[in-house]
């Protein structure tokens, strides 16, 4: 049965197995025991603010321009960049991201381009984390992906359609290559699933604040704050909030209760509407100011 309890047990079991397997492998390299993503978020916290996490897909309008936009996001103040892997069937994304990703898919943008973007973001001084639907990673090869991502200086990966229940290969590969792995929680997640999913995460937990697809929204809503509180109750891993934030004021609001503020569609819109890397930099500056003036939680 797929009851909550059983699901939780099986997640925990596979995560534990993966960890066991790696504890042996980790003997050779204890120098990077700390998660890169957690480090980035901790640094922001030390400054009394939330971290700013920017999403941009590789390949829109083309690979070089998308990399330039990611670097501009960093220059404007993003602490972490989610390097998006274009995918033909982005079931969790709204129209804005679909519109940008579609030409990238058609242009044949692949993991080689993604790894180049990862290197560029790392060189610009931010933490790079890949954001990918599962099939492109599985097709590339899970172990090969983990090895190449680590070599490129990436922190890890966010997998929006991979739940820990199905993630045995990724749990093992990410442990073996000392990579972070970020899974999502949602307002509809039961407490048992929240706990199990958070246990499988390393770096941060991605709180998908609203029930729905990616896209900017007029209001972030109470659901996000409640979800963060429920997640915090079951884990010490940082919690970042995504889905719906588009400006500095909303970022300030989310920064009042979350460890990190994730912004995607608003960045992509800068590119779709032709404002290019300059637009991305300005948006980053607005958002970076927002995460530095958190609105106190109610």
């Amino acid at each position, binding site marked *: 049965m797929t009851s909550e309890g059983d699901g939780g047990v099986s997640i925990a079991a596979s995560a534990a197995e993966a960890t066991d397997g790696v504890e042996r492998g980790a003997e050779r390299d204890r120098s990077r025991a700390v998660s890169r993503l957690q480090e980035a978020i901790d640094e922001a916290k030390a400054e009394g603010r939330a971290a700013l996490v920017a999403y941009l897909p590789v390949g829109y309008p083309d690979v070089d321009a998308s990399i330039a936009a990611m670097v501009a996001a960093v220059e404007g103040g993003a602490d972490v960049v989610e390097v998006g892997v274009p*995918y033909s069937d982005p079931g969790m994304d709204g129209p804005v991201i679909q519109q940008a990703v579609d030409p990238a898919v058609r242009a044949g943008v692949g993991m080689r381009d993604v790894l180049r973007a990862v290197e560029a973001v790392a060189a610009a001084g931010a933490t790079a984390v890949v954001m990918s639907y599962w*099939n492109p990673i599985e097709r590339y090869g899970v172990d090969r992906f983990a090895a190449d991502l680590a070599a490129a200086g990436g922190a890890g990966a966010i997998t929006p*359609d991979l739940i820990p229940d199905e993630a045995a290969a990724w749990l093992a590969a990410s442990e073996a290559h000392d990579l972070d792995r970020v899974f999502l929680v949602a307002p509809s*997640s039961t407490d048992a699933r929240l706990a199990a999913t958070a246990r499988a995460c390393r770096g941060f937990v991605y709180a998908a604040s609203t029930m729905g697809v990616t896209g900017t929204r007029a209001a972030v809503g109470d659901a996000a704050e409640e979800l963060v509180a429920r997640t915090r109750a079951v884990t010490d891993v940082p919690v970042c909030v995504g889905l719906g934030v588009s400006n500095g004021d909303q970022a300030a609001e989310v920064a009042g209760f979350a460890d990190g503020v994730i912004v995607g569609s608003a960045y992509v819109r800068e590119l779709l509407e032709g404002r290019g890397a300059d637009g991305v930099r300005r948006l980053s500056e607005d958002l970076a100011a927002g995460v530095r003036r958190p609105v106190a939680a109610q």
Partner: protein
Amino acid sequence: MTTSAVHPPEERLEPAQPSWPDATGHFGVFGGRFVPEALVAALDELTEAYRAMRADPAFIEEFAALHRDYTGRPSPITEVPRFAEHAGGARVWLKREDLNHTGSHKINNVLGQALLTKRIGKQRVIAETGAGQHGVATATAAALMGLSCTIYMGEEDTRRQALNVARMRLLGAEVVPVTTGSRTLKDAINEAFRDWVTNVGTTNYVFGTVAGPHPFPEMVRDFQRVIGDEARAQVLERTGRLPDAVLACVGGGSNAIGIFTAFVPDDGVRLIGLEAGGDGVGTGRHAASITGGTPGVLHGARSYLLQDENGQTTESHSISAGLDYPGVGPEHSHLHDIGRAEYRPVTDAEAMEAFALLCRTEGIIPAIESAHALAGVVKLGQELAGRAGDEPPLLLVNLSGRGDKDVETASRWFGLGDREHVEPGAGMDTDQQPTEGAVTSGDAVAGQDAGESA
């Protein structure tokens, strides 16, 4: 196996239940759940409610009554000797799902899922549709049970299947043309998932085939297995033996799983799925996910699919809108990998030839989807014709739907009707050329003009 082997009739008190999927929806390495976390609670709710419902005598009785009084079950089996003359002299029986209310097997599943929707207290259903048959069936069940209904359909398909769009609207459903991606069935599924994740509190997703995340492959199979449960008993009763082979077309694969399931434990019965070979698997323009694809993850499950080296789903091509899908249900992938079922491609031209043959020899206009299975019967019958044996082979084929919806496509293919005013039919691109000489049977429509008419 010899073609003359007489399989002893076997009495079964209870239908045999396959040992798969496991508790979390895996068929061997296939299946599972590759979905956003936001959908997990809804999938768990569906799983729990479905398991409770299928053991509930009140549901079993209501479902059986709907089958009998509304759909018109059991559907008959029909022997087609004039058609069978073209199949090496095999005995060929059709399972007549084309005679169901709404015109295909899709209604079997939809009635089950609509009852489940009511049981979990939701008032709205959504569904994807390619050719429109599942959309029409869902709109029908929604009207019957007083549910609000939204159907997602690729913009290309709404144009190619205007008749079914009109049927859905007459039945009170909202039809949303999907303009993202390739604007076909796979994009309609993406859009339906986006609706579901946004409105999951009020809305149930009535999935149309044995694909998608757990529990859909298992649940849809269970709702469709009535096809094979009936057919197995009917063939035994009429012929005193089991068939040598059971054949069905495979897109997502629900009609095939429906007729296969009862026969899976019958080792002597070959199970053959016919995939849409389009212009030929070698051309790259096809929809044969198992024959011409590789394992991967699409629409919530691991299965065979058509993909490129970057893991991007590639576009499928088939004259049949209902088979024009780049994936396949995970149970088929499993049956393929364990060697229990065989999967073969059938080209557009072969399917249309079989389509014409059944029309002219038996007075039955099949759905173009089902014509793929008929083409497989012709080929298999001819392969088996040379084998030693006292008795002709017995072939059972699922005639999953009727061809009313395909009249325009067929007219265009065969060069019938008003050529100035015929829209391209399902699966036919504006630049696609029908194969010359597709209709080769002397009984069938002359096809010599087909090349000029496209």
